[in-house]
Every structure is written in structure tokens, then in C-alpha cells.
């Protein structure tokens, strides 16, 4: 009986500490992810608007951004895209598909020794330019590559 009471008291006080920590803002749920998901940029319907939402408007065309993607993608649901930036001090890489309903596909922030390189697979609804924007030293740069899609990968 006594033992039960001990355990019970221990349990409630421990739970109480956690609740207090949450209330005091020490332990936020989902603390791991610092930045809020950029809803404005992801819901934009044009690449230009999405770029504005990411503070990358007016990006200068650059030949130092390499986009590796197929010229013709048979299946728009899985288009491999690899981005390499040769611009010194690259801190973020963004990928857009001009003709998708919401062009912004991904935004990668690099830090602590991460190379200016990302590789992923994206969905494309139609033949479109895949546009990449890069931020380096407070400036934005961009490049694009056309990918022809024979079967779309969004909607259906």
C-alpha cells in the first residue's frame, strides 16, 4: 500500500515538472525544428511569387549553378534532380518547378560544413523548367533547366 503511494507521488511530481517546463516555454513541442514551414512561399502559384516569399526575388542568372536532371523524364512522378552550386558561401538551395500548381518544391538550408550540394527526386505535372535559386553572401542567384515530361506526376 505504502509502496504504491510512493510510486504514485513520484509519478505525479515528475509529470508536473514536465508540464511546468512546457508552460514556461522551456520545452516546446516540436522544438527540433526551429523555423516555421514557409506557407506563403509553398502556396504561391508562380515561381516569382514563391521566390519573393523566400526573399530571393530578383535573383541574378548564374552559370555557377549546375542542375543535373534528365532531358526527358518518362515518369513525372519521379524526376531525379541534383544541384551543385559553385558560388562561394552558398547557404541555401531552393528548387522550383515553374509549371507545377505550387512551383516551390524544396528549400534546403546548409550549415556547419554541408557542401553546396543536394540531390532528391521531385514530381512534375508537365514539361517545365526546373529552376534553382541559391543564396550566397546575402545575394540570390538562379539557373534553370528544361525537363520534358511524357507522363505527369501530379493530379490524375
Amino acid at each position, binding site marked *: 500500500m505504502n509502496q504504491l503511494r510512493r510510486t504514485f507521488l513520484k509519478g505525479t511530481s515528475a509529470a508536473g515538472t514536465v508540464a511546468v517546463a512546457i508552460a514556461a516555454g522551456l520545452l516546446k513541442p516540436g522544438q527540433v525544428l526551429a523555423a516555421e514551414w514557409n506557407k506563403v512561399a509553398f502556396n504561391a502559384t508562380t515561381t516569382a511569387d514563391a521566390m519573393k516569399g523566400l526573399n530571393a526575388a530578383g535573383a541574378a542568372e548564374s552559370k555557377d549553378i549546375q542542375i543535373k536532371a534528365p532531358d526527358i523524364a518518362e515518369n513525372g512522378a519521379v524526376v531525379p534532380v541534383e544541384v551543385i552550386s559553385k558560388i562561394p558561401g552558398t547557404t541555401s538551395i531552393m528548387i522550383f518547378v515553374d509549371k507545377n500548381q*505550387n512551383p516551390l518544391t524544396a528549400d534546403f538550408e546548409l550549415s556547419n560544413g554541408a557542401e553546396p550540394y543536394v540531390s532528391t*527526386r521531385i514530381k512534375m505535372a508537365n514539361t517545365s523548367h526546373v529552376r534553382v535559386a541559391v543564396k550566397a553572401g546575402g545575394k540570390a542567384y538562379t539557373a534553370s533547366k528544361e525537363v520534358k515530361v511524357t507522363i505527369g506526376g501530379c493530379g490524375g
Partner: protein
Amino acid sequence: MAEGMKIRATMQGDVADVKALMNHIMETGLRKDAKTGQLIPAHFINQVTATLNGKTVLEAQWGAAISKNPFLGFKVKGAKAGDKIAINAVDNHGEKISGEATVA
């Protein structure tokens, strides 16, 4: 979701080459259910964080246009064999998947 994520990290010179494969449906919210004609609600990973020995190296925000079962490749300079790579992903429903690997 025990098999939520697979990560492989290998040294190439002084750069760790990390490849991750996540198990996720990545529903765009634009597709219709063939039977009911109703839109299938969006369900996709929208935030990904990768760390090397606990230090953040990559933070990504994703839209629904990342392919189903997402692949993510990145490279980290100055890593060593034996270092720990961890990746945490959260989807728009707040569900989490994560994985860990040792650099080889």
C-alpha cells in the same frame, strides 16, 4: 514505423556522402480518389533536419512535389568515419520519422 528511414553515409575523401530514403506516401492533396471522386487530403513530409554529431548541417522545408518515398542526398565536409548522422522528418500531420547512421 520502424522502417521509417534508411540512411547510408560513406566517406569520399574528406567529405561524407549521405543518402537517405524515407518511407512516406507524399500525397499532394491534388489527386482524386478514383472511386469516390473526392480529393485525397494532402499528407507529406514538410520539414527535415539533418545533424552530424548533434550539430545541424541541413534544414529543409519541402512541398508536396517531392516524390513518394523521398530520397535525400547531401554531402558534409570535415566529417570522419565513425561520426553519427541523424535525420528527423516531420509531416503536415505532425507525424515524425527519423533515422540514424554511422559514417563509414
